[in-house]
């Protein structure tokens, strides 16, 4: 059976204990929706053992820190992400980590970890993936549209569908659900208005989600401005260091320059 770097890394991260759940682009592959991302992203358990183990795996692969937060629970708990890069054969492998993915609640994460215990390759579910895909990129909303068609619960389909035709058909089948979900998704109130107004509302909804994500990222960008200014110096210092040593250096500088929460 052929192996894949992201499957292999996930098994290494989870050796002996589930610590990492595949999310974002590679999760879309595992759900057989699309192959559209070069990078690997994982939601990690927010504890010292998990983070140390993952750092150890990355060290063995000769990974280096990219500009980002330290792989340390103090920053990850504030919503920051940590980023690494290494080469494996012909591939530039980028690995991105967070413990508090946007738009997922503590209850969502609790369910995620409960489900992860049963899986060979733990991967976010369709609903969690759809939430992750509410980015600033147009293409991600096409993925949400396809994901919603794979969902089996009509409530989820009504919450995530990106097709006016699908929504109208769903509303015919489940009128009571439409009423129940209306507060959460106002465009469901347009079911009687026809395809075109619904499509306009879907476009507006997408743009709103993109702007919300842009606003969220802007908060982190502002909070990281001093860290960004210092990064070239930090990067030079860690250039010749092993990842374990670089980790200590990055933390030492970040403690002075990057707030734990944005």
């Amino acid at each position, binding site marked *: 059976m052929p192996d894949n770097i992201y499957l292999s890394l996930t098994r290494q991260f989870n050796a002996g204990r589930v610590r990492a759940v595949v999310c*974002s682009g590679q999760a879309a592959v595992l759900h057989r929706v699309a*192959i559209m991302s070069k990078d690997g992203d994982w939601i990690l358990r927010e504890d010292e053992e998990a983070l140390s183990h993952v750092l150890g795996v990355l060290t063995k692969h000769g990974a280096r820190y990219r500009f980002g937060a330290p792989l340390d629970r103090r920053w990850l708990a504030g919503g*920051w992400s940590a980023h690494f890069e290494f080469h494996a054969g012909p*591939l530039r492998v980028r690995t991105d980590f967070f413990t508090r993915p946007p738009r997922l609640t503590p209850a969502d994460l609790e369910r995620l970890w409960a489900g992860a215990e049963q899986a060979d390759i733990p991967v976010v579910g369709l609903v969690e993936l759809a939430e992750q895909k509410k980015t600033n990129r147009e293409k991600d909303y096409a*993925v949400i549209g396809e994901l919603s068609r794979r969902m089996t619960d009509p409530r989820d389909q009504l919450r995530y569908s990106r*097709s006016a035709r699908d929504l109208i058909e769903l509303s015919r089948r489940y009128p009571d659900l439409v009423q129940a979900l209306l507060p959460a998704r106002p465009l469901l109130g347009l079911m009687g208005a026809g395809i075109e107004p619904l499509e306009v509302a879907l476009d507006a909804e997408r743009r709103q989600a993109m702007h919300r994500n842009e606003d969220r990222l802007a908060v982190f*960008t502002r909070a990281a401005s001093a860290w960004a200014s210092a*990064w*070239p110096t930090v990067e030079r210092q860690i250039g010749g260091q092993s990842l374990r040593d670089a980790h200590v250096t990055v933390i030492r500088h970040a403690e002075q320059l990057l707030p734990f929460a944005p």
Partner: protein
Amino acid sequence: MTTPLYDGRDEFLSEEDLDLRSLTQDELVAAWNLWLEQAQITNDLDAHEYAHGVFVRVPASCGLPE
């Protein structure tokens, strides 16, 4: 609800993507690996960018063209 809603009118993804469901696990991994290898051609273009997480670009002073 298990009845498929898809009627061919609204398409979100390419036929190639939709075909992923028909692949065996080995075929999926092979297609995935091939895609990753071919995608390396854009490495120079996205050297300073981030696809995920809360960082958008590597700071401009890190060898980035102004």
